[in-house]
């Protein structure tokens, strides 16, 4: 989780991500940052996020993003 939070802070500085569950709806993450975030996650976690992952539900909290990353890591194992 700490690794992900670091990425989130890098992509969108000055936001407290912990406990937030409406990152997309509230506008904390917009279109631009989600694409950037996906690229960062791909690099850092060495996974390949697919377009089917790019839905608002997966990006509304740090937990949901992490859950998506875990799913990918399990698939790759």
């Amino acid at each position, binding site marked *: 989780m700490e690794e992900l939070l670091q990425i989130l802070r890098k992509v969108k500085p000055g936001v407290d991500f912990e406990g937030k569950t409406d990152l997309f709806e509230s506008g904390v993450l917009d*279109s*631009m940052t989600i*694409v950037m975030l996906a*690229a960062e996650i791909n690099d850092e976690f060495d996974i390949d996020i*697919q*377009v*089917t992952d*790019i*839905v*608002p539900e997966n990006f509304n909290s740090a937990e949901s993003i992490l859950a998506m990353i875990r799913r990918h890591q399990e698939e790759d194992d």
Partner: protein
Amino acid sequence: MKNILEYLEHTAENHPDKIGFTDEQRDVTFFELMQNAQRIAGSLARIGCRKPVAVLIDRNVRCIEAMFAAVYAGNFYVVIDVHSPETRIHSILETLHPAAIITDNEWLPLAKKLAGASFAEMIILYEDAVLREINRDHLMRIRGQMIDTDPLYVLFTSGSSGMPKGTVLSHRSVISYTTWVSEQFEFGADTVFGSQTPLYFSMSVTDLFSTIKCGSTYHMIPKTYFTFPIKLVEFLNERKINTIYWVPSALAIVSNWNVFDFARPEHLQKILFAGEVMPVKHLNYWRRYLPDCLYANLFGPTETTDICSFYVVDRNFADSDSLPIGRACDNCDTFLLTEEGIRASRAGEEGEIVVRGSFLADGYYNEPEKTAAVFTQNPLNTAFPERIYRTGDLARLNEKGEFIYISRKDFQIKRMGYRIELGEIEAAAGSIEKVKSAAALYDADAGRILVIYEGSIKDTDEVLQQTADKVPPYMRPDEVIRIKQMPYNANGKIDRQRLLKEYCGA
């Protein structure tokens, strides 16, 4: 035919209950649109005619109603990008001196702030104005005074200097352009547009006016759908969209995410694009999955209403080829002038694209010098006054008689005596597999060529090498930088000014 409102009235009469426009919240029929515009027009009666009316409303159906309201009142509209920085809006309003600002409850606070206390009476609130009674005498009196060379709208674009300038377009220009585009692509009552472009961008003219002329349907695609591409395809299918006219960057989102492996548009028939160079790699992706659609590359600046030349894709291209911009539109003379600007280019010879005819804008609002610099006398005609517009874009004719776009005039650089096309370097980098988008920049102070790219290749040397393999040695980039997200401007095009600022200190 002298006024674009005739399109709307004709369609409202023939298809009164047909849905003309939709946004996320609302659908509006042609009849409702006409009526609401006529109602709002009443509140503009006191400002007189042929005055600028700023429309400060987000991208939705209310905005379209307000635009037509300005026209019903004998004025011309200026759609303001409500999301742009306040300083930019300020600079637009200073050039424009609007006689009124139409806004809605959502943007009223911004309108008040921009207008200042002493101009509070300038503000017309949509929610109030739309409840007025229609004053038919007023509307008829105004229509009787209007002529087809009256301005219809002013559209502000960011010049290369960064200072926005307002291009003035008349009813005549928009009627001429809409006649061509709707006949060329056979738009009709069965056309369903999925609109990507904001209403303050020249490309929006095509689907907006074709819709009111032909009685088509115009769905505004919410911007967030371009973030969630699967939803985008679902939207296209739900609304049975069969025609799109998008910027290439928007089409590239679909190919970059390989969306068609997961979801496919079921109703698309016509895919038109303009606004920036279309990388063939992305076109090929679309053609592979949707081989039966019509694809057309349109080219033109705001100053020619929207478009001056076009190419309907009729053959195959390799990923690294460049797509022609084709030939002049009907009733629009597009030709090339040599560098000295006094003689027509010969076959194969490079020249500046210039345009003659009714598609031309009248000039820039309150900018006589900028107008005179690019709207000039046709140097090939010394017998009588005849205006041309110099686009500042370079092209040449190929052996098939098609225009091949080269680059912006100011995009062409000279280094160590060699003439270098940044566009060519950009196309080379952009055609590399796993490079999602690329931009070539010239740092004039340092004399260096930079390539900025977004993509999953982490090793920038690999991109440098593959780019260098495709261009002459003197065009080899000096540095390649990988970024996580290519910046895009409000119209959805690559934001070069931001890249220049960031990487070249310009």
